[in-house]
C-alpha cells in the first residue's frame, strides 16, 4: 500500500514537524525556565542559613529573595588557587560547567551573608550521588571552622532514600555546629553509617542510601578544600 518513497518522505516530514514543534515550546518557555532556575538557586543558597535570616526562604517570593540578595549578600568569584577574580559575577558560575574543566582552571562562587552576628561564608559544593549529580551549600561562620548551616540538592536521587538529603530537614540540620578543622588541619565532615563517634566531625548517614551518603562525604571533602586558601588569606 505504501511504497518506499512514501515512507521516506513520511519520516522526513515527521522529523521536521516534531523538531519544529519542540523548538517552539523550548524557546517559548525559556524565560520561565531561566527565572525559575535563578530563583531556586538563590533559595538554595539562602536555605543553608535560614536560622540567620529568620524566614524560611522556600516560602519567600521572587522579589523578596532578590531584595535580600541585593542588600545583604556579597558575591566573590574565586579562581582555583583561591584568589578573587575581579569583574566576574559569582552567580554566573555554574559548578556543573566548572567541573568539566581541568582542576587548575576551575572557578568557584563564594557568597558572603552580612548578618548581625558577623559574616557567614556560603560555599558551593558539587559531587556525585547514586544516580546523578548532587550539590549543596555549606555555611561557615567567621571563625572559618564552624558550620552554621547546610543545604543539599540533587538531580535524580531515589525519592524516600537518597532524596532525603534534601527532603528531610534533619539531615542538613545535623551539620550545624560541626567543625571542618581538627587541630588546625582540614578534616572535612564525614557522613557515617552506624553511629557517630567523632561528634565534631561526623554526621549520621541516611539509612538505605549508602551511596548517596558516601557521595555527600566525598563532595564535602573535595568541595570545601578549594575555599581554604581564600579563608587563610582573610585570617591574616
Amino acid at each position, binding site marked *: *500500500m*505504501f511504497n518506499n518513497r*512514501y*515512507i521516506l518522505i*513520511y*519520516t522526513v516530514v*515527521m*522529523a521536521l514537524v*516534531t523538531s519544529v*514543534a*519542540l523548538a517552539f*515550546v*523550548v524557546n517559548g*518557555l525559556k524565560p*520561565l*525556565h531561566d527565572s*525559575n*532556575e535563578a*530563583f*531556586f538557586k538563590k533559595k538554595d543558597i539562602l536555605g543553608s542559613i535560614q536560622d540567620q535570616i529568620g524566614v524560611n526562604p522556600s516560602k519567600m517570593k521572587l522579589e523578596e529573595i532578590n531584595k535580600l540578595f541585593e542588600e545583604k549578600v556579597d558575591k566573590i568569584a574565586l579562581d582555583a588557587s583561591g584568589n578573587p577574580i575581579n569583574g566576574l559575577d559569582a552567580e554566573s558560575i555554574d559548578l556543573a560547567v566548572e567541573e568539566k574543566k581541568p582542576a587548575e582552571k576551575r572557578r568557584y562562587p563564594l557568597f558572603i551573608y552580612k548578618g548581625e552576628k558577623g559574616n557567614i561564608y556560603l560555599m558551593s559544593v558539587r559531587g556525585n550521588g547514586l*544516580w*546523578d549529580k548532587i550539590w549543596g551549600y555549606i555555611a561557615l561562620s567567621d571563625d572559618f571552622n564552624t558550620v552554621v548551616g547546610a543545604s543539599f*540538592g540533587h*538531580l*535524580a536521587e531515589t*525519592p*524516600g*532514600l537518597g*532524596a532525603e538529603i534534601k527532603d528531610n530537614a534533619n539531615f542538613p540540620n545535623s551539620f550545624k555546629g560541626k567543625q571542618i578543622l581538627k587541630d588546625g588541619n582540614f578534616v572535612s565532615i564525614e557522613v557515617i553509617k552506624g553511629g557517630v563517634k567523632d561528634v565534631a566531625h561526623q554526621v549520621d548517614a541516611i*539509612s*538505605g542510601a549508602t551511596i548517596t551518603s558516601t557521595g555527600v562525604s566525598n563532595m564535602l571533602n573535595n568541595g570545601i578544600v578549594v575555599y581554604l586558601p581564600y579563608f587563610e588569606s582573610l585570617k591574616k
Partner: protein
Amino acid sequence: MAESAIKTTVPLAPKEGWWGRKERSLITDPLHMDNPITVQVLGVCSALAVTTLVKPALIMGISVVAVTGFSNLVISSLRNGIPKQIRMIVQLVVIAALVTIVELFLKAFSYDVWKQLSVFIGLIITNCIVMGRLEAYAMANKPWKSFLDGIGNGLGYAWILVAISAIREFFGRGALMGYKIVGPSSDFLINTKSSALLSWYQPNGLMVLPAAAMFLIGTIIWIQRSREAKLVDIS
C-alpha cells in the same frame, strides 16, 4: 413480563453520540474491570518507583493522563496514513515529543515537582501503557474514542498510583501530601511520644522502599479478583 417492561423503559443511548454508553465505558472500564496496572499488569515499574509520596505520584498520574490521551488522539488521527512498516517508530516519536512537552511545561510551571520527578517524567516514554493503548486501540479506532480510551487508561493508572502513594506516605512517614499527621516528634499533628496510648507507634520503614509498593499492588489485585470472579485467570 414485568422485567421486559422495565427494560424497554430504559432510554437507549444515541447510536453515534459524543457521550453515549460506549464512550462512558471507555473511561470507566480502565478504572476497574480493565485497569492497566492491576488487570493488564502494565506500567508496574513506575508504580513501584514514584509512589513514595502523594504529590509526585499525583503529578506523575496527571502527566501520564495527558500523554496517553493526546498520543492516542494524534496517532488515531494519523492512523490511515502511517506506513505499517514504521508504525512503531511513528508512535514512539509522537510519545517522545509529547513527554518532552509535558516535561518542559512542568519545568516552567511546577519547577520543584519537576526536580523531584525529572527522571521518571522522561521514563513515561517507556511506560508500556502508552504504547499498549496506541497499538491496541488508537490504530483501529476514531480519534474521539481513542482520546477517551487514552484518558481512561491514564486515569486507571493514576488512581492506583495515588492510592498506593497515600498508603505508603501515611504509614511510612506519617504524612499525607507533605502534611505531617502521625509521628514521634513535635512537628506532627499527633505526637505519638507525648501520648501514653500511642507511644508504641513507629512509622513503617518498609513502606518507604519500593518493595512495599509491590506488596500493595499485589494486595489490590487480590482484593479486586476476590470480588470480581470474571477477572480470575484472564491475564
